[in-house]
């Protein structure tokens, strides 16, 4: 029964949601709405599971005296500190019933003083690594790599106002060589064709996997049978 009940629930809900998409009338419309609401409720509990898992992993690293345990300590202090400040809405008005991120709350201070600069720093590092990687790896070794290199070159210049000023003087018959036009063409034609192919492939894969789940052919999500 431990396997049959989840299989039955998956079949019923999966079938109802598929039917609701094609027949948006009662009772399927209401079923679709109720399932969405329950999905949102379950998603909230995922935060608790995620938090619990984060604590488990890092407490384990500290107790095992892992060489990098100092980072785990910072993670736990940061996590619990932010959680408590947010839950009890310290500094906020009117206390527990107010908005956790309103002006004046400690959570807002933590968000602005720690989370914003740390997040921005992490993303900014990308520019340095992209530059370094471009220098070392972006080589015209083969014909395909050369085409990729030329496309990247046009997109890089086309993504700046400089692209316009470099080739705006081109006469009308040669306007297709104007860098912003070339950049736009690369994005709207070859890129679009590739993206569509990938998206259609992914969609077909999702349909196949979903059908296998609904029909009970794919059962790996249930875990191993003892």
């Amino acid at each position, binding site marked *: 029964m431990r396997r049959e009940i989840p299989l039955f629930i998956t079949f019923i809900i999966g079938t109802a949601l598929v039917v609701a998409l094609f027949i948006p009338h009662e009772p399927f*419309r209401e079923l*679709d*709405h109720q399932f*969405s*609401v329950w*999905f*949102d409720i379950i*998603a*909230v509990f*995922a*935060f608790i599971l995620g938090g619990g898992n984060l604590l488990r992993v890092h407490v384990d690293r500290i107790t095992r005296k892992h060489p990098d345990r100092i980072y785990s300590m910072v993670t736990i202090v940061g996590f619990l500190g932010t959680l408590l400040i947010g839950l009890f809405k310290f500094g906020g008005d009117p206390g527990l*019933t*107010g*908005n956790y*991120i*309103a*002006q004046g709350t400690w959570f*807002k201070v933590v*968000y602005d003083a720690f*989370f*914003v*600069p*740390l*997040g*921005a720093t*992490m*993303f900014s590092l990308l*520019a*340095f690594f*992209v*530059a*370094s990687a*471009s*220098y*070392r790896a*972006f*080589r*015209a*070794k083969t014909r395909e790599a050369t085409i990729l*290199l030329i496309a*990247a*070159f046009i997109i*890089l*210049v086309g*993504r*700046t*106002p*400089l692209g*316009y*000023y470099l080739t705006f003087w081109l006469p009308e018959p040669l306007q297709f060589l104007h860098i*912003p036009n070339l950049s*736009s063409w690369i*994005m*709207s034609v070859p*890129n*679009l064709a590739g*993206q*569509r192919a990938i*998206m259609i492939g992914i969609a077909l894969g999702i349909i196949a996997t979903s059908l296998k789940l609904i029909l009970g052919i794919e059962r790996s999500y249930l875990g191993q049978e003892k």
Partner: protein
Amino acid sequence: MTFIEKMQAIDRRIIFLLIALAVIIPMVFKLVIPVRPSPIVQAIFDKIEELPSGSKVLLSFDYGPATVPENQPMADGLARHCMIRGHKLYLMAVWATGEAQGNITIENVIAKEFPDAVYGEDYIQLGYKAGNQGLINAIFTDLKGMYTTDAGGVDINSFPMMKEVNTLPDFDLILCIGSGKPGLKEWVQFAGDRGDIPVSGGVTAVEAPLLYPYYPKQLLGLMGGLQGAAQFEAALVKKYPQYKDVSSGAVILMGPQTVAHLVIIAFVIIGNIGFFVLRRREKRARTE
């Protein structure tokens, strides 16, 4: 070791330093390069412009602090334009960090530039709810069922601008500023397509190529990265020159980005010259 060989084995810290200088120097000297709106960005501006005053516009903040330099000017620009046109602006977030970013737009744009705008009548912060695309699916049929209060915990039915809004199809336009999943793509799939609601917005430069397949039928326009934000600012200033001083955050940042791109291009060219010179030398050595 020859000069070319030395260049090929250059310490990456030198590359890091040059990139840092490429960003810092244009910022210090306030290098501003004029930006022109492209058709894909102009389409968003035109849509907001052609909606009758008082139209209901949903603006979803689906990003976090990591992508603020790209995303925040987009959100500020869209909010500014909606307020100029007198649209009702509904702010929400599918990302946990989005609500704080929405508050920044309220503080920096709405409160400062439109002091006469009344909360609950002209704009409202609905805040964040968990559920990702499940949330979009749920509010499609019952928005007030999910948002029983605004972000501040006040009863949703007490706000005049919420009286005519019960589902997503009640909105005239959905705008999303995103930097990942769930984001603009999910708004197209779960709201725009399903309810035939116009959807538009902006995403980070790395995500923009993924959204081109939806343009122009399912996505009426797209701001891609900082350049997209700068182009929207340029379109806004062209029509409303009185906002030139406040609507220039992305345009100013385009200077450092342009120089950084040029430095990266220079690195790629130098790297390839070195590669070809060394390859030719190797071939010559083999034949000798």
